[in-house]
């Protein structure tokens, strides 16, 4: 048990270090932060001075080890552009992103499961085909086009939903929430639907495939033969078993949602971490970029770690292999 646990933990830490190093060295190719920081009319001496103060003259590995040393102490540094603590900036932005991701995941799972079950049971029906075609569009159209189309329809033409921002937010300690005001809830609709479409399509297809497979299995046939009601078979026996892979996949995909939210946040001017990151890229704000990458990597690694550990308890085969 502990052997397995520590092996996984060690792997996770290794992944984190590699991610941190790769992202950090990539930033050497995104451009020169000094140019954005000093403006185009600064003198050469001033540029050299800023470069020196920021330690950009040191070799990459020196910069990297300094960075890792600070990160371990919880210090992500100061944003070049905003000149504020990166950890503060991320903490301020995190509630917006997490609320968006939470609502999107909810939409994706609930509607994905309902539509997936429907299309799984009524395989060749007219409505199933329409759902599948539309979901295909959802997965193949880029997020920003879907977002702009929704904005155009619901904000410009119908004028019922806001096109940007988070509406009115309520401060609950360190957390800001949009769940408690009407404008906050209205502002959530378009971005979360946009963000959820990709995942929803995924869930629909997964649930549909699972349902179709399970409905062919022997125990369903026996249940049918025993005369159990169709709805009980479909929802109690078939769906329950079909949901196991869905839960695993969506768990892992929460990380993807956070990463995907960059585009959605930019389109809807959602004040989350994604839009902070995009702005940082534009400005070559290395501290924010590194912190964001490390954080997203951390979320991915953590989810994977938890999934692995959960498997240990769920799947007896892993336990047996370890013990045997």
């Amino acid at each position, binding site marked *: 048990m502990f052997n397995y646990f520590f092996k996984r933990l060690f792997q996770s830490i290794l992944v984190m270090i590699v991610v941190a190093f790769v992202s950090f060295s990539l930033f050497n190719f995104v451009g020169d932060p000094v140019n954005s920081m000093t403006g185009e*009319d600064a003198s050469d001496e001033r540029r050299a001075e800023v470069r020196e103060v920021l330690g950009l003259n040191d070799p990459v590995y020196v910069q990297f080890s300094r960075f890792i040393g600070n990160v371990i102490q919880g210090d992500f540094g*100061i944003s070049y552009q905003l000149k504020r603590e990166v950890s*503060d900036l991320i903490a301020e932005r995190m509630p917006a992103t997490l609320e968006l991701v939470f609502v999107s995941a909810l939409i994706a799972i609930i509607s994905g499961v309902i539509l997936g079950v429907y299309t799984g049971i009524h395989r060749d029906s007219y409505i199933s085909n329409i759902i599948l075609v539309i979901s295909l569009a959802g997965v193949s159209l880029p997020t920003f086009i879907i977002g702009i189309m929704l904005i155009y329809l619901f904000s*410009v033409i119908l004028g019922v939903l806001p096109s940007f921002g988070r509406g009115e937010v309520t401060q609950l300690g360190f957390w800001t929430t949009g769940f408690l005001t009407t404008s906050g809830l209205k502002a959530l609709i378009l971005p979360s639907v946009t963000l959820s479409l990709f995942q929803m399509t995924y869930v629909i297809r997964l649930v549909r495939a699972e349902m179709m497979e399970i409905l062919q299995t022997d125990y369903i046939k026996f249940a049918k033969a025993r005369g159990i009601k169709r709805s009980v078979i479909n929802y109690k026996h078939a769906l329950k078993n079909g949901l196991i892979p869905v839960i695993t996949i969506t768990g892992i995909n929460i990380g993807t949602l956070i990463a995907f939210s960059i585009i959605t946040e930019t389109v809807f001017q959602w*004040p989350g971490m994604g839009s902070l990151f995009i702005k940082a890229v534009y400005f070559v704000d290395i501290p924010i970029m590194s912190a964001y990458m490390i954080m997203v990597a951390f979320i991915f690694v953590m989810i994977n770690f938890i999934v692995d550990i959960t498997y240990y308890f769920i799947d007896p085969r892993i336990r047996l292999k370890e013990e045997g």
Partner: protein
Amino acid sequence: MGLPSNFYGGNNMKKTLSIVLSLLFMGIFSPAFANTIKWSMPGDSLTLDPHAQNEGPTHMVSRQVYEGLVTPGINMEILPQLAESWKTTADDTWIFTIRKGVKFHDGSDLTASDIAFSINRAKTAPSDMVDLIKSVKSASALTDHTVQIVTDGPNPILLNQLTQIFVMSEDWAKANGCEVSYNWDAGETSYCASNANGTGPFKITFREQDVRTVFEKNNDWWGDDSTFNVDTIELLPIANDATRVAALLSGEIDYTNVVPVQDIERIKSSAGHGVKMTPQNRTIFFGMDQGSAELNSSNIKGKNPFADKRVRLAMYHALDMEAIKDKVMRGQSVPAGIITAPGVNGHTAARDERLPYDPELSKKLLAEAGYPDGFEVTLDCPNDRYINDEAICVAAIGMFAKIGVNVTLDAKTKSQHFSEVKEGDANGMTSDMYMLGWGVPTFDSHYVYSYLFDSAGSWNKVNFSNARVDELVAAMGVETDQDKRNAMIAEAWDITQDDVTYLPLHHQVVNQASKSNVDVPIRMNNEPLFRFANVN
């Protein structure tokens, strides 16, 4: 009357109650009959500290809240602001008389020492304004209402430079630990970066960076407040062009000073909206390295084609800027014959006349210069800095191809482009040909010359070097006799225009869009002045 009388009565009661309630609601959430402008642009001010960032949107926000000794008016003319008058007592000594009765937003009085403090703060290292006012040697308060500024030799454009220096309260800054602008090393957030205490017509009452900033009218403002009827401004930055336009069309914002070129017609076609346009104080041009012995990217070895003036002239005649204006810029540009914008001292209509588009002449010039079959070169372009920058380069390359010059495009993001133009790429290779745009915050040609033409100029990456021009740049920096100085500027332009040192393309155009009833004067630097804004 079959219905019981209390039926109506009850209904009326309900109605009255709902009216009263909604009035109360309005009273709570919006001051009665307040005029509000919801303003949007792609970015937000980076910091409220007025000296920490020398950057457009940051100054746009500061300008509503903070004031300077002098300020640019709607047409960029220099007007007195906190200084009532000024005089020079020696070539390098200026005395400013400070306006009386001016109060900061926190109620304290403005004194001469606040002004001296602010200028000294702006010229102290962590500040981003250091380069702008490096000619200021010292600023000191002589009395409560006079300030003396001593410059390093005569400085004819001191006033232009001072328009960018905002005045803070000395006591407030010191009490809040921001005696100097943000220090890179210090590692803490400065109070003055998220709070403002100026003397301007608006004060900031709410600020959530990148989300929402609320400005309320300062009722104790010293100036003439009959020029505007705006009580509240809300700044709501929207980075995405399409979303910003959608928010304007849906009425969620009232005004934006940054309009994407492709959406201008769409906004004009909306009944409730209007678009205003004016030439911008930024000119786009190509630089061609004429000083290096050999070009890095060319097939011509051992000599540099751009060193020959006939080649540069051939490149000039090959460009059809009217076509680029129509096809690439959708009419939103002013083809230029000089690399500085109208309104800058030294710019004249005659100098802004382009040489004719004449590819046949270009071919002849190339043949004369010894390149009848043209040559190859790489053009470096930004793809996210100027309006349609990459598309302009693509169009220009097609035009150069017609005269046999085979240009390869290397387009990249601005942070890479500018550092490669300035310092060379990773291998130390400098750019042979590049796109650059130059704005002139001081509205004087000296700014253009000291950066782009002086042989030591930090953006002179065409390696232009002319002893007479260097002499003139130095002289125009210190000459205080305006006529003599203007003659120097004219002579410098004569030399560099004849030399075809740079290939002028066009002046960018500023567009702003608003609801029809919202009137914000348009200015060539894209900066709104809400003290001249009205809601009708």
